[in-house]
């Protein structure tokens, strides 16, 4: 697995679209890291925000001595800065939660398929349970009992998302567990963990790899929904997702920029994660290696 991922990353990109997406994703990450340095305003510092300049059009000069390049939101935050800072939270929350959820879910799903019997029953009923519990309820419980915080949101998102991976992986692994190469692995008396992680998982992972970038997008949206209800990140420190979600109310108003620009940034982020994910999926397929 590790070797494959490494190899996947070393592989030169294929088409121009994928190159572009990798560049895009990389620059997103760089921008997120560099946000405090490059953002004209710190949108999390109330002293730097001028409420009277709320909803300024793109290009309006601001009191802070800089141009509101993409305008300001309904509270006077510079949209450019909000996007840059929001990116940090969104990236961390969504990528971490999707990655951990995928890890847990895939392991659970493949284990269920491999062990069968009561392990399968137990894991799968847990999945059923999880699937029928709305994220909002989980987030509410997590945040009310544990207090607010980004780690709680990540926790809630992990709880909300692992089950999907588990079901997908189990479905595929059920077929894989019956293939002769698994017999060979079992004969080798490999440690169970190795059979699961080294044999079944890589062979059941393809659909999940398609799913992960998509779920990253979901995580952003979920986090935004939670924030919108006051259950996510603090309202004065909007993530990219919550900037889009609260800006959404301005969609039909004339103040398009409040929603549009963060939305475009988010769109680009998720799209680039998806395209890079597609690239990773291709390189995980051994039959694509030589191409």
């Amino acid at each position: 697995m590790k070797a494959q991922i490494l190899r996947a990353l070393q592989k030169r990109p294929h088409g121009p679209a994928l190159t572009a997406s990798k560049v895009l994703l990389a620059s997103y990450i760089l921008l997120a890291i560099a946000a405090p340095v490059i953002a004209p305003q710190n949108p999390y510092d109330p002293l730097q925000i001028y409420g009277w300049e709320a909803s300024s059009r793109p290009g309006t000069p601001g009191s802070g001595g800089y141009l509101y390049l993409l305008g300001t939101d309904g509270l006077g935050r510079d949209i450019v800065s909000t996007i840059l800072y929001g990116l940090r939270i969104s990236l961390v929350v969504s990528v971490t939660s999707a990655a951990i959820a995928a890890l847990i879910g895939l392991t659970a799903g493949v284990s269920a398929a491999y062990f069968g019997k009561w392990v399968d029953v137990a894991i799968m009923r847990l999945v059923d349970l999880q699937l029928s519990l709305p994220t909002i309820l989980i987030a509410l419980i997590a945040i009310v009992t544990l207090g607010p915080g980004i780690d709680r949101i990540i926790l809630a998102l992990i709880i909300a998302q692992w089950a999907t991976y588990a079901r997908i992986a189990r479905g595929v692994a059920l077929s894989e567990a019956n293939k002769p190469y698994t017999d060979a692995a079992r004969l080798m008396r490999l440690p169970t963990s190795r059979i699961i992680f080294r044999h079944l998982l890589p062979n059941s992972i393809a659909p999940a790899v398609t799913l992960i970038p998509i779920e990253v997008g979901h995580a952003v949206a979920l986090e935004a929904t939670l924030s919108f209800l006051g259950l996510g990140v603090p309202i004065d420190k909007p993530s990219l997702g919550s900037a889009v979600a609260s800006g959404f109310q301005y969609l039909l108003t004339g103040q398009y920029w409040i929603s549009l620009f963060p939305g475009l940034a988010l769109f680009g982020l998720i799209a680039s994660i998806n395209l890079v994910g597609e690239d990773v999926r291709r390189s995980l397929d051994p039959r694509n290696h030589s191409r």
Partner: protein
Amino acid sequence: ADSAQAQERGELRIATSYKLMTLDPQYANLNENTSLLSHIYERLVYQDENLELKPGLATSWRPLSDAQWEFKLRDNVRFHDGSAFTADDVVYTIERIRDFLKPPSGGFRSYVSGIKSVSASDPLTVVIETNGAVPNLPLFFSSIFVMNRPSEGFETTEDLNAGRSPVGTGPYRFESWSSGENLELARNDAYWGGKPAWSKVAFRVIESPAARVAALSTGEVDVADAIPARDVASLKERGARIASVGAARVNFVQFDVSRETLPGVTDKSGQPIGNPFKDRLVRRALAMATDRGILVDKILAGYGTAAAQVFPNGLPGTSANLVPGTPNYDEAKSLLSKAGFPDGFNLVLAGPAGRYPGDAESLQAVAQSWARIGVNAQPSAAPFSVFNTKRAAGDYAVWYGGTSGEAADIILHTLLASPNPERGTGALNFGKYRNEGFDAMLAKAESIEVGPDRNQALAQATELVMADQPIIPLYHFHHIVGYGPRIGSYVMHPRGWTTAMQTLAAME
């Protein structure tokens, strides 16, 4: 084809944010219910757009003595089922609320709890005896829908919800409803007040503001209420018209002034400090540093009025002397220094999310303002129910809230009077603010009969209490209603009702 048909039949289609949750007019005292049910049911007294009391099903009323009121009823009024409206129905209504309905049904109980007995001295006269003076009784009756006495016993909420029997005297009769989805009404041709304008009225419950705006934009509905202020401009561009009025309510910041220490209140280095809000100077400083202009102009896009008291200026019981000032950060800072907080302090400013127009945004705007005098406020929004639970549990030090009432004194009574379960005062006074001078003035004002004197006394009491700043009134948001070409004009009501009676059909 859809709209042409509607025109022909004279159907009025309203998109409302109020979900009608029950057909029992006496179950819960929420605008959600009363706004829509006022088509079917009527009250003895009608509160007009200036919150003045006008004859409704009662043509006149007067106190016979300190503890006795007489209401004269309108003649020739018939219920939708054809039976005549008599004093007995009023007696039934009061008995039903007082004696029959059990909790959790409530909210109307407090209006009749002061009534000792009620009798029909003749078919069109009701005499009510109260425990002690209740000068507000006619006002209370402006909230109570009159029901028709059935042949025997009391009607249960379940019966009413089953949708077979809602029978009132109102201008429209009940046709059908689906809980939280829609309500259909038809003209009551036998209405005592003349022929209602529309042959049919269809309410569609659309909770999402964007969806209401969309439905109005496409002409699927003629009226949409609770339009977000930010959408007004583009709605106007698309040809819709807008009506608005300052709401008879206030949104405010409230302090916990009773406890010695408060959760989340620390000095700048994070060490807990004693309750700073016990000090009037701190409260004043924070009030002085609050920029209501941003709230009103930016967050509410102009559809709000900066507040300095509990009702918009000009309504009965308000004081003309209380006007919201512009922020004065320097003076606020010096007040803080004087109070012993030259560097300011940290606090968590709590509030509900998505409950009132501009609630979560206000938290942030207020925090921005306060930051200018060194008070570091961390805005923290929670779903309304979580907010309420936590507030009741004392988890908050300072919070954003909102309240409304039929009259200014009712708000003063619940929000600012000292908590006193026996008298029923201070139900919303979660900050445990106590001001005996104010309590006395309020009690005195409340004992005066409705009229200029009473209003004057209330205004004075308000001035006294606001000088102490137990709350920072922020704004009275405006109710905004958008309407389409089929509507000639729409009369706004400060209580925020949305009814067919407020519309005037456009002239063809």
